């Protein structure tokens, strides 16, 4: 029990990161029923965008440069995400469902290779700035990393903004309408093409915030960082109920805590010593996913089964 607070806080920070990325999967899926497998790469380009801003501002303290870095990451991620929508997915909007899926995989490889080939020194891991100073010691058994503070503040703010946007603004309500029934929404005068671009853009912006958080946490970014993050975030989106934005965040947090607590606790269960630790955390996280989907096939907060699948 001594380790419980630390395990929960680490899991929460990790999960909030997954959740922010999962928003991008879930919004796009909610509106166009496309699993955008290139979303992990949107995170990756956001990280490189933020790093570029950092390199342009030598000597500026990280705290001061951070808003600009986030802005730079957001600009790049949103640009790439909306360009992907316009040039890779829109021409295939009415094609069989597998076509855009394969396109997404192709796009993912292409983006990785582009960064690998053209970003200076991206063939190796690039160093990302980190906060200086020690962790905040909140209690004897609980310390909080400075980079965890960033994600734990940024993720709720992003969620709050998104929640207000979708429920209060006209565009947000138009977005909900498009998700429920695109044809009727169009008949009501909603420009659904614009709404779809917006869904990609919001997903891209959240991905960039997550990318900065990941960079601050790890201190390194690389051209292939998007794959595992994307996979985990996709899992989080499914766990929470794909199509539901709060579900994505909840799924992320549950997945994050499941990962950290399986590292800490499974091996203390008598007879399970061999099945615990970092090597098995994904097994337990996915076992949890299967369990949840057995009981609630629509995910934790999913409202409807993907009926048009």
């Amino acid at each position, binding site marked *: 029990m*001594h*380790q419980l607070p*630390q*395990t929960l806080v*680490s899991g929460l920070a*990790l999960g909030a990161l997954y959740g922010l990325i999962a928003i991008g999967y879930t919004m796009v899926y909610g509106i166009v029923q496309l699993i955008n497998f290139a979303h992990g790469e949107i995170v990756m380009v956001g990280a490189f965008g933020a790093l570029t801003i950092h390199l342009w501002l030598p000597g500026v303290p990280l705290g001061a440069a951070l808003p600009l870095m986030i802005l730079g990451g957001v600009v790049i991620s949103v640009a790439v995400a909306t360009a992907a929508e316009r040039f890779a997915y829109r021409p295939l909007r009415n094609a069989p469902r597998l076509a855009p899926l394969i396109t997404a*995989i192709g796009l*993912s*490889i292409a983006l990785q*290779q582009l960064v*690998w080939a053209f970003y200076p020194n991206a*063939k*190796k*891991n690039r*160093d990302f700035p*980190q906060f*200086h100073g020690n*962790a905040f*010691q909140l209690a004897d058994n609980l*310390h909080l*990393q400075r980079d965890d503070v960033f994600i734990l503040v940024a993720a709720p703010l992003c969620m709050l903004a998104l929640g207000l946007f979708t429920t209060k603004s006209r565009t947000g309500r138009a977005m909900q309408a498009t998700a429920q029934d695109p044809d009727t929404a169009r008949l009501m005068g909603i420009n659904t093409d614009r709404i779809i671009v917006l869904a990609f853009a919001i997903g891209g912006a959240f991905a960039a915030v997550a990318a900065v958080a*990941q960079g601050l*946490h*790890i*201190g*390194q970014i*690389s051209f*292939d*960082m998007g*794959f*595992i993050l994307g*996979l985990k975030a996709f899992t989080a989106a499914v766990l929470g109920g794909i199509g539901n934005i709060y579900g994505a965040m909840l799924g992320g947090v549950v997945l994050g805590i499941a*990962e*950290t607590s399986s*590292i*800490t606790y499974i091996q203390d269960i008598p007879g399970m010593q061999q099945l615990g*630790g*970092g*090597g*098995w*955390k*994904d097994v337990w996280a996915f076992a949890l996913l299967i369990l949840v989907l057995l009981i609630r096939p629509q995910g934790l907060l999913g409202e409807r089964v993907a009926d048009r699948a």
Partner: protein
Amino acid sequence: MRHRPSLLLITAFTTGSLVLTACGSRDDKGSDKGDSGTKTTVAIGVDSPFTGSLSALGLGIKNSVDLAIRTANKNNEVKGVTFKLVATDDQAVPGTGQQNAAKLVADKSVLGVVGPLNSGVSQSMQGVFAKANLTQVSPANTNPALSQGDNWSSGQKKRPFKTYFRTATTDVIQGRFAAQYLYNEAKKRKVFVVDDKQTYGAGLAAIFSQEFQHLGGQVVGTDHLTVKETDFSGIANKIKNSGADAVYFGGQYPEGGLLSGQTKKAGAHIPEMGGDGIYDPAFISGAGKDDDGDLATSVGYPVEQLDSAKTFVQNYKDTGYKDPYAAYGGYSYDAAWAIIQAVKKAVEDNNGKLPGDARQKVLDAMSKVSFDGVTGHVSFDEYGDTTNKQLTVYQVVNHQWKAVKSSTFKD
């Protein structure tokens, strides 16, 4: 989990290899024309990761082999023979390595191959080379089973592939050397052992643990991490709570560096020790600002300190390679030079001409190779292992690796 990257890599590789094959055939035609002159062209293959997170080590290997080939051509080391480099990128993926091996075997001008970097990749290549009698010399593989068979630990050593040689010492020696240093000289008694579940990392961690406990130390906890992941804070918290006074990590620098940094961020200010897989400048940048005191063992004496290596270091600098020679540069140079010496012997025994069964003759000559190389005296024992058992412990001091102890391993 690992399904999709391997698929992607295979796709990428297939495309790449189509392009490369096209280039290769053009080269062959070129050299055929050249044959009407007096010089035969012999290719030396090099296989290591040139891309991805281990490329710092892989490119050092490639460049050092290139340097050996340039030197041999410049000095006219083997009369009537011009050497050329055939380089293949395995991206540290066993499947890709195997395809590369098949490609190198198919190129008849290749008489020896230097590489690969990873023990796990080597496992998938050995069989391909053995069937074709093509000599393979790895500058970096340290897993004992590669040369001594799967039952090496129970004393039943049996050489599985007659074509396999290495200039690097094995993990048996390296892991035990690390344990002896940590127990006897660093005076650590409680160690937490982490590995990356790969052939190299898990093997090294097991050998280390065994020797450390044998000496009287205690392993207070073990855990495993997954390659290519970046968040190890869960493991870091566990290390902190275990009360260990040192961490031993079996694996490579990308994960090792991050683990070290995150362990210290979690509040456990204890050194992390690892094998030659973490002995790289990228480990230090990965670990962040807090890594002074971390330790690594690496095979051989520091290249910079050996008189025999001064020329190598100078030539490497003068040739103007973009990437540093890294941890295995000297061993790669020696590996390539061993193949060149074997080719020389094969040619000299055949009245100055390349024999018809050149691969077999080069292989036969390998066991007799003996010269003073960059890293010391180079020769191979009955298993194809190097007879050189020198090791060095390095420590991070002011964000740089500094050699703290070099000696020859004693049982």
